């Protein structure tokens, strides 16, 4: 192409309206996520074992509430073993890999995530007998002045490490009970414009959580920066007798906001909560 034409072509691309995007295309899923996380697996989208709730329009891309609900109860014979979640179009699509147990009672999970743009969000469930099923929802992360970063970083830093369990104490012994785990942590995505403003670019986020009731596992989570600042989860466990709910978690720092090759483990935290009907 003649050299002089290049800027004109560039401008032409800019002047034209954006190519209309198919609402919620599966390109990233088909080409990247599926091959990376589920090579060789058959994943059914008909009659999935889970449902996914997500707002169609996410007014605050920094805090998008999602909820996965299981359509089957957790029994020792048949239960949902794992749920993976992804935001296809995020720079780093992986939200997390969540492990459930029969003593989870219900493999339900509500959480808050960052959504950078218009994207499909998906959850994939694996049962203990090796069946995979998937649900997805299209979410439009709002424009406006919002950004998928914490609004008040210093405030988040100040209370970093603070943890809360919230439980409705009027429960019935032996039945699944919902609890909320709140962890104050800025969950930094890392910054890429440091050359200009000299700010550190490392990401720093909660990478693992393990929740137990009376030392039996209830929920394990491997997570990444798609989780909103101040990670917040609602899930179930079965208080078969009075006891102690515990959460152990850790954070880590990675050199790049989107690559995970060079990371340093951070701190470990523990929180305990006495449960008595």
């Amino acid at each position, binding site marked *: 192409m003649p050299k002089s034409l290049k800027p004109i072509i560039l401008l032409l691309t800019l002047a034209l309206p954006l190519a209309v995007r198919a609402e919620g295309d599966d390109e990233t899923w088909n080409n990247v996520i599926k091959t990376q996380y589920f090579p060789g697996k058959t994943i059914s989208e008909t009659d999935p074992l889970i449902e996914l709730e997500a707002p169609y329009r996410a007014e605050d891309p920094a805090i998008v509430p999602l909820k996965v609900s299981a359509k089957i109860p957790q029994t020792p014979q048949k239960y949902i073993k794992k749920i993976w979640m992804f935001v296809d179009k995020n720079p780093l699509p992986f939200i997390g890999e969540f492990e459930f147990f029969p003593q989870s009672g219900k493999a339900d999970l509500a959480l808050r995530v960052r959504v950078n743009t218009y994207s499909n969000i998906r959850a994939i469930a694996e049962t203990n007998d090796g069946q995979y099923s998937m649900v997805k929802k299209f979410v439009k992360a709002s424009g406006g002045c919002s950004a998928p970063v914490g609004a008040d970083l*210093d405030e988040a830093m100040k209370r970093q490490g603070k943890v809360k369990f919230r439980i409705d104490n009027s429960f019935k012994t032996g039945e699944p009970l919902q609890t909320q785990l709140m962890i104050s942590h800025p969950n930094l995505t890392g910054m890429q414009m440091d050359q200009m403003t000299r700010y550190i670019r490392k990401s720093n986020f909660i990478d693992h959580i393990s929740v137990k009731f009376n030392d039996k596992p209830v929920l394990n989570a491997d997570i990444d920066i798609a989780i909103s600042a101040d990670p917040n989860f609602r899930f179930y466990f079965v208080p078969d007798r009075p006891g102690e709910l515990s959460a152990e978690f850790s954070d880590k720092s990675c050199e790049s906001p989107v690559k995970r090759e060079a990371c340093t483990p951070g701190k470990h935290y523990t929180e305990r909560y006495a449960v008595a009907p």
Partner: protein
Amino acid sequence: MKILLSCLAIILCHCAWALEPLPVNPIAPGVYLHQAEQHWPDRGNHGEIANIGFIVGERCIAVIDSGGSPQQGLALRLAIKNITGKPVCYVINTHVHPDHIYGNLAFKDSGAQYVGHYKLPRAMAARGEFYINRADELLALHLTPEHIIPPGLVVKDSMTLNLGGREILLTAHGSAHTDNDLSVYDKQTDTLWLADLFFREHIPVIDGSLKGWLTELDKLENRHYHWVIPGHGKPTQDWPAALQPQKRYLQLLASQIRTLLQQGKTLEQAVAEVGQSEKPNWALFDEFHRKNVTQAYAELEWED
């Protein structure tokens, strides 16, 4: 191809010829305001939706917010040239939001100093890349990192700038609309340029701290000003009365969310229930209210 090129020539020349000076009005002697309409930023308006303007000293000009697009920055610069012919010595960014900073590049070669809250550079670093990546899709703007110009001069508490026979006082506020809000006070005309610390007609947008904002409002309504300029909506001489709708809205969010938190209600329930009675009072309620509730809930749930 020939036809295509001539079409392009028209488009290109249109860009060059279309630069009209930005309409501005002197609301007080030497205080010029471009008052925007209440719109959601989109590909049609290119995010040119905020009140922006400038203050004229004997020696030079202070720009207050450069505009929502590079083009609007250029139009503002042309307006300044036509009206005063004086050099721009300061480009003040009142906070990190796109509608207030995307015109920055227009003043780069004017020798002006860029001024902002001391937390503004960090906010630009944290959000800049995301903003740039979505500028085309959302605003039909082609932006690069060079459009996001961080302040060379930062304000930690307050700072006085002299424009030649005219002093303006800059105040760095605690976390409120954002965590990097800066206000500008012109002593000569007793004008307080609050930018997005103050919304009129346009629903207030929380992107910093609800509690912090209410604290700042308590301080701001303590005294009278001749003129107060909001970031969105009409300037007012009726202070602090004109602030009350915003204060009422923010207080309502705080009290209703605290009640729901005590009842053990979730974020999703709060988003569905809180503050709906305020809908008739604000433009762009549907666009911003649920975001406000989300941010406020995530803040207030950490109260003991």
